[in-house]
């Protein structure tokens, strides 16, 4: 039945290499149970040829081959792929004791040094915190602080003496810290208009700035909104003995804010002109992009207790230096029971005196190493053969249904 002639006629036209074609030929002649099976290529070629032949519908293929093809075409068998058949090679992680212990150990080994380094960095930071909102109220008015702060006739000047506990290398950062001030209150946060700050042509745009949109005579306020209106207005100046320590207020805001969110050609106008004065007044001849106090203030804080950068002092302070702070205690935190603090701090590569991160790393790292040992102990005390038949529920409770 099988005449080899058509095959050999076709064979040269096939693109396979001669070796493969020969393999295919041998396979096709029915001896492929032999050594060809080792060579996948030859066998695959045989299949390819089969399909090729039947697809071409060669007459000499015989009804069998056509039937084969027909069967293959008629079948509704889905096309095979590892994806659809869910046979993708997969990693099957099992939390074996080895893994558990090594993961804990590894985390511990990495975390403890990081923690130590962060902690050391935080330890280097010297921080002086002075709460002055209470102390700056004259003794006779401590019962009525609100009256004190609202009374413009009473001088708000106040002097605080700070002692440097440890040597502080420049730059020394001056922060003010407010407590119980909800800069993240929803209605406070939205009471601003960024378009207005960015573009002098939009100075009339005061949407969402309620209640500080317009002055009493209907002129738009720039910068509008509650955030700007409540700008912090306590001021500090520092002296060490006779020496005046200048506070550098340049570059206290993020560059992106300064350059993109507050424009160089937008000037404050109609600001703090109303009956109620919220806070600091702005010099209307200085563009917003240079009003860094405002820019700092308007990057609203996440928590009701927050610090804002006031400025930097580029002088080294020695231990036991006494620093006299002259401050004007203008900002009203008394009406909501807020606290005001002045903070002098140095910084390291990690930032201010934040030992939280270091402790967290250290504790977690230590805990992981402890757990690595604890688990080793557990595996020794309460051993369980991996894959123990007896742990299968149907072996544990054989009577159960």
């Amino acid at each position, binding site marked *: 039945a099988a005449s080899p002639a058509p095959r050999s006629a076709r064979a040269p036209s096939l693109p396979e290499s001669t070796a493969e074609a020969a393999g295919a030929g041998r396979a*096709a002649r029915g001896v492929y149970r032999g050594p060809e099976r080792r060579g996948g290529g030859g066998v695959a070629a045989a299949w390819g040829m089969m399909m090729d032949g039947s697809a071409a519908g060669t007459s000499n*293929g015989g009804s069998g081959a056509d039937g084969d093809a027909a069967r293959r075409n008629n079948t509704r068998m889905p096309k095979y792929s590892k994806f659809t058949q869910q*046979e993708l090679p997969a990693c099957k992680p099992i*939390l074996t004791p080895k893994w558990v212990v090594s993961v804990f150990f590894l985390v511990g080994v990495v975390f403890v040094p990081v923690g130590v380094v*962060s902690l050391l960095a935080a330890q280097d930071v010297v921080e002086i915190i002075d709460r002055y909102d209470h102390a700056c109220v004259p003794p006779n008015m401590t019962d009525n602080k609100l009256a004190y702060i609202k009374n413009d006739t009473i001088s708000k000047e106040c002097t605080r003496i700070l002692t440097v506990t440890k040597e502080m290398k420049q730059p020394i950062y001056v922060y003010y810290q407010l407590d119980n001030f909800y800069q993240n209150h*929803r209605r406070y946060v939205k009471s601003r208009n960024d378009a207005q700050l960015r573009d002098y042509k939009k100075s009339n745009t005061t949407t969402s700035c309620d209640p500080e949109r317009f002055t009493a005579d209907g002129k738009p306020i720039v910068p509008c909104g509650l955030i700007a209106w409540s700008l912090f207005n306590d001021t500090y100046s520092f002296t060490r003995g006779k020496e005046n320590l200048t506070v550098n207020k340049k570059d206290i805001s*993020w560059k*992106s804010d300064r350059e993109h969110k507050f424009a160089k050609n937008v000037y404050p106008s109609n600001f703090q002109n109303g009956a109620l004065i919220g806070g600091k007044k702005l010099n209307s001849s200085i563009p917003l992009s240079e009003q860094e106090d405002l820019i700092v203030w308007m990057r609203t804080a996440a928590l009701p207790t927050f610090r804002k950068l006031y400025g930097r002092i580029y002088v080294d302070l020695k231990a036991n230096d006494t620093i006299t702070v002259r401050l004007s205690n203008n900002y009203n935190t008394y009406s909501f029971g807020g606290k005001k603090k002045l903070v002098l701090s140095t910084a390291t590569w990690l930032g201010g005196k934040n030992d939280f991160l270091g402790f967290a790393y250290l504790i977690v790292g230590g805990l992981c190493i402890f757990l690595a040992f604890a688990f080793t102990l557990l595996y020794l005390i309460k051993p*369980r053969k991996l*894959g123990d038949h007896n742990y299968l529920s149907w072996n544990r409770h054989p009577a159960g249904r």
Partner: protein
Amino acid sequence: MFWNLTDSTRKRQSVVCRFPNGKLVLYCKGADNVIYERLADGNYDIKKTSREHLEQFGSAGLRTLCLAYRDLSMDQYKSWNEKFVQAKSSLRDRDKKLDEVAELIEKDLILIGCTAIEDKLQEGVPACIETLSAAGIKIWVLTGDKMETAINIAYACSLVNNDTKQFIISSETDTIREAEDRGDPVEIARVIKESVKQSLRSYLEEARRSLSNTPERKLAFIIDGRCLMYALDPALRVNLLGLSLICHSVVCCRVSPLQKAQVTSLVRKGARKITLSIGDGANDVSMIQAAHVGIGISGQEGMQAVMASDFAIAQFRYLTDLLLVHGRWSYLRLCKVITYFFYKNLTFTLTQFWFTFQTGFSGQRFYDDWFQSLYNVIFTALPVIMVGLFDKDVSASLSKKYPQLYQEGIRNTFFKWKVIAVWGFFAFYQSIVFYYFTAAASQHGHGSSGKILGQWDVSTMAFTCVVVTVNLRLLMSCNSITRWHYFSVAGSIAAWFLFIFIYSAIMTSFDRQENVYFVIYVLMSTFFFYLTLILVPVIALFGDFLYLSLQRWLFPYDYQVVQEMHKDDPHEYSMIRLPERSHLSPEEARSYAISMLPRENSKHTGFAFDSPGYESFFASQQGVCVPHKPWDVARRASMKQQRQQPQRTGRS
């Protein structure tokens, strides 16, 4: 001249024939009990022999029919035919009237004899049923067969064995037969009901006793359709259900389609169990629809069952794969996907919740709107879909090797309140970590510039931690991790960074988008960000890891033990490779070719029955060598063909 269709309530079929000589004969075939009811008196010999034969055949597992005839006179036929035509043309209750008319003529029959047909179980049915029982599935056989046949099949399916204690409620008892002989239908009903009631009660007591004394002994409950009708009475239903639930297997024979549905809904509603019905005939449709899960076997009996079903399979034995492999995987995946959805949204939302406490309860949002909107859509969407598609705890072959694993699903191990509570607890824990660890950061200056982070910096940092952690948590809960998992998890995290890099680099005036302007770059300019990004996910996942390790070691799930047992197995493909792409050995090629042959199926396929190439019962009884079935011929032909195949391919 006319015929009455068989239906399940009539259980018989009649024709009236006229011989060339003008003689009229009514022939009737049907189930034995139906025909025997309608036999004329006399001929006790043949009745007795036939009955003996019937029992013999039945216990040999054959399906039996009785044949009877009756001579009709022309007048009888004519007067009857008038009524019949009238009934046929009536507009109301036509079926009922037709039945009544048929009753008029189908009486005083003379028994011809009985027939028996062998109807073998489909390939692999006993093994399948055994596997399913081991999987904790209780199997009820609802069949239209005679009781003897049904019991025999139950033996064949290993539902019943010689040690099994059988509780049989049959209408073929002497008392009932006596009552039948007396012929008063009311009396018959009363007698049957009484006996059903009594036996139910006594069996229930006995079963309970057996359960407490010898719990390892298997119990089987067998009832026939007629008694079942009374047992399904509301007064007896409780006992029926109680007894059925105690017994390991239940066989209902001679039941009508309606009763099949009734029994199914009895279990479904009464026992509050998940029910699955499987059948291939039109008479299984009502049962398939009554069950939670209906499965049709596509076979020779038409497509009704398949069309009414939720799933259709080609052979009964594929039920093992359907339930133990795909059903189990689906269950696991669903549980995982649902619990994970709970978890990831809870984690995310709770961070917002904690923030609310520190905003003076003003409802300020913690995250930018777009973060929130895209969280479920992009940043955490794909990995969980991958789990839903690909997660496998154990391979298909192991699922079948350890059918008991299926019991985890029956006990709903993975979707209990406890499981959800554990996820919920860790979501709670993680949200606290996310919120407080990142919020604590805003207190101090970061980096050597001493500048302070604002609210949006903090929230962006928290969100980054959430996205990273939630995606990594998914990897932790995967039993098998394919490259798609890696792609999707890494892709989701990368998508977040890509998004925030672009989003915070542009400034539009749409709804406070300026808030997040440049935040990610501000964050990335500090060491603090990177340290937090490593710390927070590790702390967040610490609890989960601890829990998983302890749980696995101290209270391992069954599937975990099985995983451990086969941890070092080489990667095995769970399914048979489909042949297009793979090379087949000659043996495989042959078996494939055989499997592709058109199948000759028995015309009489009942519940899960068809019989490729069986040896005839009668022939083997008589020691006669039977001619080969067409299927056998085809098989041999295929073997020959297979030997020729290499030559054939050579020609192409």
